[in-house]
């Protein structure tokens, strides 16, 4: 089953075209990585899919609902972790999680039990009562991602989820994401190419708002004739590294 289908999805900001006629299909349960250099259109694409930005033209259908015609239905099925750490600073870890669970329709006791489960999965139980603002940057990031997953979304958008995490925290998060593969559809943007290679079922590479390449990491290497994924990415993203 198709979880996400974009149809000529386009976003223009005055004269600049950030996303240009994007046609993309993501299967249910797939972990899809959207890669590209800065300004390639990754975040704009995610913002449109999350109903945060209206497309200039085109549409996208998420789990059968259009972002243009049924945004309320789309919002009930998705959740997102923005690029910046987005937590309520004066709420405790548990309160932050309960708040998101309740916003997505859980009652108080359901929210409490979901928060307990999520804290367990993300190793946040021992900081349950601490205010979010007292957590380290890495733990705040972990909380932010936990908040994106507590509502059991059908589709989760994770924008640079491991930015700023240390190696251990990043690996822990990778394990969480691997555990969710097949259960929920995840769209990931990242600048860490090894992350995309290790986690993703398929990878889409955006360049100047257009989809330049699509396939598994292995397919993209074969397509470019490169031995490493980083070289393949550089070739596909049309980047020139100056010596």
């Amino acid at each position: 089953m198709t979880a996400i289908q974009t149809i000529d999805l386009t976003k223009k900001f005055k004269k600049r075209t950030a996303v240009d006629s994007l046609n993309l299909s993501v299967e249910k349960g797939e972990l899809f990585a959207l890669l590209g250099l800065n300004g390639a259109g990754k975040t704009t694409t995610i913002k449109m899919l999350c109903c945060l930005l209206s497309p200039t033209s085109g549409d996208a259908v998420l789990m059968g609902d259009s972002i243009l015609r049924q945004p309320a239905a789309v919002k009930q099925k998705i959740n997102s972790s923005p690029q910046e750490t987005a937590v309520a600073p004066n709420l405790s870890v548990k309160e932050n999680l309960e708040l998101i669970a309740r916003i997505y329709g859980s009652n108080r006791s359901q929210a409490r039990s979901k928060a307990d489960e999520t804290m367990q999965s993300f190793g946040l139980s021992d900081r349950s009562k601490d205010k979010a603002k007292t957590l380290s940057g890495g733990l705040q990031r972990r909380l932010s991602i936990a908040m994106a997953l507590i509502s059991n979304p059908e589709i989760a958008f994770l924008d640079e989820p491991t930015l700023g995490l240390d190696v251990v925290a990043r690996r822990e998060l990778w394990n969480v994401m691997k555990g969710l593969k097949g259960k929920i559809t995840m769209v990931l943007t990242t600048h860490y190419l090894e992350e995309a290679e290790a986690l993703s079922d398929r990878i889409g590479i955006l360049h100047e708002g257009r989809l330049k390449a699509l396939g598994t990491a292995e397919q993209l290497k074969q397509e470019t004739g490169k031995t490493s994924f980083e070289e393949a990415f550089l070739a596909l993203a049309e980047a020139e590294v100056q010596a």
Partner: protein
Amino acid sequence: MRLSAFASRTSKEILRDPLSIVFCIGLPLFLLILVGVLNQRLPYVENFAIKNFTPGTAIFSFSFLTLFSGMLIARDRTTSYLARLFASPLTGSDYILGYSLPLLPLALLQSAVFFITAFFFGLPVTVYVLVTLLVLIPAAVLFIGFGLLFGSIFTDKQVGGFFAIFVYIASFFSGMWLDLNMIGGTLKTFAYALPFAHAVDAAKAALSGEYPSIFPHLLWVIGYAVIVFIIAVWAFRKRMKG
């Protein structure tokens, strides 16, 4: 359910910041006590009589609701917290009410603290005090509306800077410190074109039991509150659409 969860978050964010309690209640309370003590030692000044100064203190304290609600909204925007919530099932009215409603009980608490304190400085304990608390509600809504507006158009740092100007205008032109009749002329006309002096006069009239005098002033306050809220909701919804 969603609204109550979000509104509860607004209360916690503001009340758990010690600065908000210091400024919303502590500073105005200190000024009220200072004026109350000075009244007992210095010759009578009409403006600083406790029955006149207490309503002004309440209005002055409401301006800090503008600061803290504005900063909360602006911070939620700049940290992407609002972007996260905009992608959730919360609706436009959930945001507006969720940011505004929790501040009304705080406004009532502020006013109640000041009037109870004023009793110790000779303010008569009458039913008029309860009427005054009700008359202050539209003024509280007005200041909360300003907070929503500032939070929707400024960054959290800009809200702090702009508030310095706002609190000066609100307190000076409310007639709290200076008798506007004594100033007269263009400044008095200007002051009464703004809502702040009307808010204080409506509360003073309520406290004196002069009910017919309340409504002309209250209508100004309600009119301004409606206009400010309409602009704030428009600005906020514009932000929601990216």
